[in-house]
């Protein structure tokens, strides 16, 4: 038993080292000094309070999408559609704010209603993918991916159509909301403790939901073996739908936070890849909710830190994506290799 733990750690460390090695080779190939680049990423993420704040701002939606996808993964579902669900969350939140911005309602209430609308929007979009899967026999991967495209088109239509800025519409999005409708932030920063607190709370809630409740156990049973779960008395398709709904709610919340806390308007690509990144985090932590927060933080730091590379070395900021993807790929590979290794013993 003890020996196995060391074998596990060995394979994980090997995967990590290999990911760093390949990334280094790529850096060398594009002519950037690797060591300085890594230091640059670190500095870019933690070099100043502002940078750390940027990491925390980026951490929040990633926590939410990771938490959401942990639920659907538990039920054995690949919710690729989180990007779209996040986008719909943003659209619904924007819609609600636009609807109420000129009323006499207190701003706090408007913001709350906006966030709630976002949660509902994400849930609706997710339940669409769920219904396609449950009643239409459409694989959730295709349904989710298709709905992602639809949501992008819808955003662009809104930004350039009915919700365009006075004058001409532009890719920079809709007219920003007035300051009272922004989520309150820490002084002199753009960090909203509300957003951060909600996100952390949701991850903790999902952890307990999956670990300690009948609901979580039934989801897990459906994910492991729907037939057996059904014979044991679990209403299988309903639980699949629940999983989609909850995941959509969390993605929608992430979208609503982007609108109320970060951008204060709707803009194209507001989901910013957080939906997919959440999938990566979930895979990297092998679907163990307890690791969601630190690994999501690490990914957020990579994202923010690599912006520095673009400034200093003229490297594209998608470089952080290369490192993240390599890491996930190699850790998954390492896991496969570990299992083969243990079987052979």
């Amino acid at each position, binding site marked *: 038993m003890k020996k196995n733990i060391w074998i596990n750690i060995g394979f994980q460390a090997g995967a990590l080292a290999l990911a760093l090695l390949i990334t280094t080779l790529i850096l060398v190939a594009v002519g950037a000094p690797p060591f300085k680049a890594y230091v640059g990423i670190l500095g870019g993420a933690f070099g100043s309070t502002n940078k750390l704040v940027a990491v925390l701002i980026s951490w929040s939606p990633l926590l939410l999408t990771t938490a959401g996808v942990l639920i659907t993964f538990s039920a054995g579902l690949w919710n690729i559609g989180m990007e779209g669900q996040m986008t719909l969350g943003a659209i619904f939140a924007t819609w609600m704010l636009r609807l109420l911005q000129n009323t006499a309602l207190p701003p706090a209430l408007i913001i709350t209603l906006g966030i709630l609308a976002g949660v509902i929007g994400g849930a609706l979009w997710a339940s669409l993918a769920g219904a396609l899967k449950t009643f239409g026999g459409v694989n959730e991967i295709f349904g989710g991916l298709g709905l992602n495209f639809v949501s992008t088109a819808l955003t662009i239509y809104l930004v350039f159509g009915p919700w365009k800025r006075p004058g001409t519409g532009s890719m920079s999005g809709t007219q920003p909301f007035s300051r009272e409708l922004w989520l309150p932030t820490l002084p002199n920063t753009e960090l909203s403790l509300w957003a951060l607190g909600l996100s952390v709370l949701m991850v903790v809630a999902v952890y307990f939901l999956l670990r300690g409740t009948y609901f979580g*156990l039934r989801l897990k049973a459906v994910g492991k*073996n729907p037939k057996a779960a*059904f014979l044991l008395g679990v209403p299988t398709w309903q639980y699949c739908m629940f999983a989609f709904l909850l995941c959509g709610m969390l993605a929608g919340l992430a979208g609503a936070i982007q609108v109320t806390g970060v951008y204060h308007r709707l803009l194209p690509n507001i989901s910013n890849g957080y939906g997919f990144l959440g999938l990566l985090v979930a895979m990297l932590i092998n679907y163990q909710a307890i690791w969601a927060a630190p690994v999501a933080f690490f990914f957020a730091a990579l994202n923010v830190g690599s912006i520095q590379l673009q400034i200093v070395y003229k490297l594209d900021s998608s470089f952080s994506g290369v490192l993240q993807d390599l890491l996930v790929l190699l850790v998954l590979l390492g896991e496969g290799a570990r299992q083969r290794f243990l079987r052979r013993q």
Partner: protein
Amino acid sequence: MDVELHSIYKTFGAVHANVDISLRVPAGTIRGILGENGAGKSTLMKILSGFIRADKGEIFLDGRPVIIHSPADAIRHGVGMLHQDPLDFPPMRLIDNFIAGHEGGLFLNRAAAARDFKRLAEQFGFSLNPDAYVDSLTVGERQQLEILRLLWLGARVLIFDEPTTGISASQKEKLFAALRLLAEQGKTVLFVSHKLEDVEGLCHRVAVLRQGHLVGEAGPPYTTEKLVEMMFGKTISMAGRTPCEAGDVTLGLCKLSVEDYRLKVRDVSLDAHCGEVVGLAGMEGSGQGLFLRAVAGLARTVGGRIVVGGKDLTGKSHHAFKRQGVAFLPAARLEEGLAVGLNLTEHFVLAEEAPGFFINWEQGKALTQKRIEDFNIHGTPVSPVESLSGGNQQRALLALLRVPLALLLLEHPTRGLDVESTIYIWSKLKERCTQGTSILFISSDLEEILQYSDRVLVFFSGRVTPPLDAGALTSDKLGELIGGKGWEEFTSGKGA
């Protein structure tokens, strides 16, 4: 082509599927391979057709020793097999299926293939439209397609695995005519079946397998009694059956009809009483599985009524049946009964009524520990179910059942288990009976059916006998009925 198998051995884990089997089949003949489920027929045929490798033994084709690595390799040697469920591509056209297995270059020659297809089909009197889609065909027509395909690929030895299951009488005639024609052309036909009448009417000679051994061969004229005895072994002990007192009716079936794409089970009526055990006998795929699932609310019925404990559940979902005290234990323990990846505690917590939102894991573990002791399961509360042996998985499934139950439905409750586990499982089931549960179970083991049932329903190609008193049944009689003999007496009172 002459086929000779020499001293074939094959084991799967602890199961001896084939033990020292030697068989010679000359070209131009039809050889029946007879035996009950699990006798090793399919294993032997899969070895010959390259699906699996023998542990030991040799294969000679026309006197030359060959080593067959794969099905593609087999067809290169001229050996082709038709599987019970045809291995084809239902969403594709016939002609594409026909070409799919063909070796060749990059480009298809559909026109030439279509010409060959037509010529072969005419030769055998098959009317198949090469442009139709396979999923529009009946099972019989899909077999015809397979025959043509294998012949086109150059098969000179054709293996048919239970080909008469699920096809109509007229298609069967056509099939048999085709098989005779194949033999006349000098092909070698191996005909795997458990149906005595098919074998008797068709085969030049029959080899009988039982529990992995070749127990003997027979030639015409066949005597049914002799074949039954060879298939099922000697007389069977009848100890251990306790006649039941007629109690309340727990399950009432009135002219229940159920069907799927290959079988129709019609008008089954049965009243099962408290504590009664009803055995469902028949070769696999004769309709008993479909029937049992219908009684569990897992298969759609097309007629009749199901009443459990006085409540009409016809057309209701399995969960409604469950609430009324019906439990179903599938034969595929890891595929349907248990969730691989969850441990025993998670299963027991899942199976119990949820008292609230949060799980008390301590309590769950304690409950699991107690059930593990009660049911003598070799495992711990945190053992993943897939780490348990088959017998322990079955004990776990029984331990998962709630108390009390009105009706317990089991598919092959002791399949693959050793004697000790089998006895243990039945002692637990009998305990349930004394608590008033009625049991319906499927088994392909005649001994088990006769030993534990109070009454027996025998299934054959979707036909069902009225409930027969197990005390008055002999293994010979049961074996004949399973093989489709001696049904005349039921034709008038069918489904009574």
